[in-house]
């Protein structure tokens, strides 16, 4: 069997990965438009370099690098985005579709996680990457990636318990 991806394969690959990629990009820039620009640039770059289509770790690493490059290019913008990431109350488009009230609370709790834990959570839960892949993307050990994931879940659980009692 050949293993050369066709245009159709790439289009399907993008359709499959796009929601998760945009969600991942939004961990760096909260504007949907900016996140989509990053995903477009990263995906086309990934495709042009003829990387193996199944190498999702490299695709996510490309998105991350593109996002960080964008932030570095515009320091003022970076500060603005950092303020948003730090947890200000600015209104941004929701990151999840059709969430119920309890799901919105959960999404809000995800939003308040420290950035380094949130990006691991996003890659693990909504993009189904392994800890090995996440570790290679972030340049950290697998144990560190797994720890950040567990810290994120623990923080979410802790934050959600009082909320559940109210309702």
């Amino acid at each position: 069997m050949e293993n050369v991806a066709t245009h159709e394969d790439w289009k399907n690959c993008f359709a499959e990965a796009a929601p998760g990629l945009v969600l991942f990009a939004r961990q760096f820039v909260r504007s949907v438009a900016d996140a989509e620009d990053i995903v477009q640039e990263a995906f086309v770059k990934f495709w042009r370099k003829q990387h193996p289509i199944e190498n999702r770790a490299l695709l996510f690493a490309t998105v991350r690098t593109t996002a960080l490059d964008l932030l570095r290019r515009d320091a003022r913008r970076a500060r603005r985005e950092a303020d948003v990431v730090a947890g200000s109350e600015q209104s941004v488009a929701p990151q999840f579709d059709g969430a119920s009230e309890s799901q919105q609370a959960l999404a809000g709790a995800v939003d308040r996680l420290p950035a380094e834990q949130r990006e691991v959570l996003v890659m693990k839960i909504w993009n189904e990457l392994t800890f090995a892949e996440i570790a290679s993307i972030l340049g950290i050990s697998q144990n560190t990636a797994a720890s950040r994931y567990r810290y994120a879940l623990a923080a979410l659980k802790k934050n959600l318990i009082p909320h559940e009692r109210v309702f």
Partner: protein
Amino acid sequence: MNEFSDLEGELRGLRPAAPSADLTTRVERALTEAPANVATAGVLPRPRAVPVHWLGLGVGLAAAAAFLILARVSVEKPAKQQPTVAVAPSTAPEIETTLPRTLVPDGVTRVVYHTSDDGLVFPRNSEEPVRRLRSRSRETLQWKDPGTGASLRVSYPTEEVELIPVSGQ
């Protein structure tokens, strides 16, 4: 199962917002409008230019011509034996001539674009854990009519789930 299983299930219930249709359009356009000087994915890289050696080229052409002559001879041999083999009723050749040209398999492509490891799971009616590996791929089958050059391509997504027994230690 771990202490966070329920929470992980709830998190997976959150569906990431769908990207805009504009993004999909822009990416698809970019995939088809690659600049001419940029190698496009899915296409084998252009081989390096090799200086032409005319003597070698001449020898090569002569060898190719000899090969074609020999190949032609070997192809014609079975044709000579055909009358002795043809014991079928006389209608058989007519059927063959009335049949449309058939498509012959021309290629199979299988592109794995996502693999994931679900870790250990306990299937029903099983006391031993197994490791579940998933892989999503797209398979493309292609047929070609050698006579007309027409081709038919069928492409479909597949998902394979592999359960690997884990022995106790």
